């Protein structure tokens, strides 16, 4: 009997030893003379179980995890190749409560298919969206995107249909699709996971975007910190070209970032592709009018683009049919930091922050009480547990001074020192500032110094007033959200955790 063994090639699994596990399993299979194919799939998103190894049996796929290379001999001796029971066995991965409770529209195939195989993609329903999009006329395509209610998943939540309509209506000799895979926010990894686990989905999403706006060239800008995603996308693009999916009407070129957070900002990213410093451009003109190389450009986050094939395949109503208020569809939430069950959880908007952190995430990994969560990356606010009933919804978060951003939730236990986190927010802004505006470039450096003085007990009242002032100046005097939103983590830490900013807070909390 020919067996298929799945050992994720996803960076989290690899970082936890998956390559060694795959090699050891290969060795055992060869020694036993078994007909075994090892597929390096993506991750299913249950990261506490990585490396999560699966084997096909008559009953379907059976999983084991987390498998360390030291576990492999015992696992094989117990009958792994026949799907036999073992203490690391988890049964059918799809029946794990963490997965079973999700509504996976975007991540439906991630962790299931072979990311290097276009045939596997098609066998699992891939390509239908592009076919449907081709069958529609130009107006109907834009109408489909608009009807889905999809809002940009890169942070700003701008309606994707309106952006594409603007580009489609622009008159120019050339137009571009640009995919923003810079994913610099701490606590986020959904772009990485889908590029590594279902790369053809992004190719299809970008191709549909090209069709909608009338572009034949797409750029995919991936951060250099993601070598596995870069490799997976390069393999998939090669396979798509070989099969004629890419190359004729539409093609994609990968560009690799160079360790700059601000290059995730759309205009800085365009500068970077053009070969310049990643400095933010003043708007207008919008990229939709004058973007890459001066041409109308649709620039979108990975998660926005990978939502598109499903919307065309199943119709926009299914997507728009779930969600909360003006936040339609599903959000791939990323659970990170000090959390027991970290990973990817795709769910319709409307679920509460507390349900995600405590029920689904299982609280902290350390077993200590949750004290704070940061949502929306380094520019997002810190939330205390008393705000955990806030639903995941763009407007609901804005109402309590927060943002959903790219959907990353970073959990901290009670050992966190919030004054240090506020200091870090300023420090990160200072390190990554593109240098264009004074409030950001200088304000962030002053912020670090001021928090240091505050912690040292040097005229604390005056320092507090200065921090509040600085935050106001940065908020209103910055060109982009790096300077403009750094006040969110700083001020939310100050508002919700004032006790950590007292000089007598005696840095002992840090232990």
């Amino acid at each position, binding site marked *: 009997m020919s067996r298929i063994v799945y050992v994720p090639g996803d960076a989290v699994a690899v970082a936890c030893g998956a390559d060694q596990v795959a090699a050891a399993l290969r060795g055992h299979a060869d020694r036993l003379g078994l007909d075994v194919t090892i597929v390096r799939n993506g991750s299913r998103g249950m990261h506490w179980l990585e490396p999560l190894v699966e084997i096909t049996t008559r009953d379907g796929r059976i999983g084991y995890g987390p498998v360390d290379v030291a576990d492999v001999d015992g696992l094989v001796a117990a009958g792994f190749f026949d799907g036999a029971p073992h203490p690391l066995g988890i049964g059918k991965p799809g029946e794990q409560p963490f997965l079973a409770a999700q509504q996976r529209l975007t991540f439906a195939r991630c962790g299931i298919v072979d990311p290097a195989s276009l045939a596997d993609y098609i066998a699992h329903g891939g390509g239908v969206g592009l076919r449907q999009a081709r069958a529609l006329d130009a107006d109907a395509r834009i109408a489909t995107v608009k009807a889905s209610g999809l809002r940009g998943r890169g942070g700003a939540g701008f309606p994707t249909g309106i952006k594409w309509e603007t580009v489609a209506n622009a008159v120019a000799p050339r137009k571009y699709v640009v995919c923003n895979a810079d994913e610099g926010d701490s606590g986020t990894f959904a772009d990485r996971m889908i590029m590594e686990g279902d790369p053809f989905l992004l190719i299809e999403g970008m191709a549909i975007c090209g069709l909608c706006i009338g572009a034949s060239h797409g750029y995919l800008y991936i951060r250099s910190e993601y070598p596995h995603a870069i490799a997976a996308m390069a393999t998939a693009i090669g396979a798509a070209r070989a099969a004629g999916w890419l190359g004729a009407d539409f093609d994609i070129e990968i560009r*690799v970032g160079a*360790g700059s957070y601000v290059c995730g900002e759309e205009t800085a990213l365009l500068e970077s592709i053009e*070969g310049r410093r990643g400095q933010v451009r003043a708007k207008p003109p919008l990229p939709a009018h004058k973007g890459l190389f001066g041409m109308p450009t649709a620039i979108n986050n990975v998660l926005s683009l990978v939502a598109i094939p499903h919307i065309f395949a199943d119709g926009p109503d299914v997507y728009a049919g779930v969600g909360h208020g003006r936040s339609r569809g599903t959000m791939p939430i990323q659970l990170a*930091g000090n959390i027991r069950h970290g990973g990817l959880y795709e769910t319709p908007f409307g679920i509460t922050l507390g349900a995600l952190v405590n029920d689904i995430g299982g609280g902290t990994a350390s077993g200590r009480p949750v004290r704070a969560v940061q949502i929306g990356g380094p520019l997002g606010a810190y939330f205390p547990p008393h705000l955990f009933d806030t639903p995941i919804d763009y407007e609901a978060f804005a109402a309590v001074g927060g943002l959903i951003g790219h959907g990353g939730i970073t959990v901290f236990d009670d050992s966190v020192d919030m004054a240090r986190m506020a200091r870090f927010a300023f420090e990160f802004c200072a390190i990554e500032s593109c240098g264009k505006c004074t409030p950001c470039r200088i304000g962030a450096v002053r912020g670090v110094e001021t928090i240091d003085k505050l912690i040292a007990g040097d005229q604390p009242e005056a320092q507090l007033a200065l921090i509040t002032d600085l935050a106001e100046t940065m908020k209103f005097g910055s060109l982009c959200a790096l300077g403009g939103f750094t006040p969110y983590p700083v001020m939310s830490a100050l508002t919700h955790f004032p006790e950590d900013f007292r000089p007598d807070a005696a840095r002992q909390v840090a232990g």
Partner: protein
Amino acid sequence: MTTGNPSLSLAEVIAPFAGMAGALLPVLHAVQQAFGHIDDAAVVVIAEKLNLSRADVHGVLTFYHDFRRRPAGRTVLKICRAEACQAMGSDALIAHAEARLATPMHSQRADGAISLEPVYCLGLCSAAPSAMLDGQVFARLSPDRLDALLAGAMS
């Protein structure tokens, strides 16, 4: 640090990018990949080949954290300092690495054996703390596990 084929000349490394729109970042990556760093002499050649001013190339080179103007240590350890890793003790991991390697963050040890650098998120935030050692990623790190990895990489 692993580098590409050292027998290639700078001109040969740059040649494939002729005619590419916005080629500077891909060229800088390729040059650094081949030679480990991008020195002033390389800047002159790159500027000439891409028809840019030296100031342009220099400005880009110094803007991006990834590019090096001097060789790195033989081993490069980048430890993640971003929030999710901090929530899982990356500050302590960094302090441990600095002490163990006798090398402060952002620097290279005098014997050239290792460079210790920060990185801001590797997308492994659900398995923190994480690090990149000579381009390989590692997660769920403890001081002991880091020591074992370093022993392997630096032996």
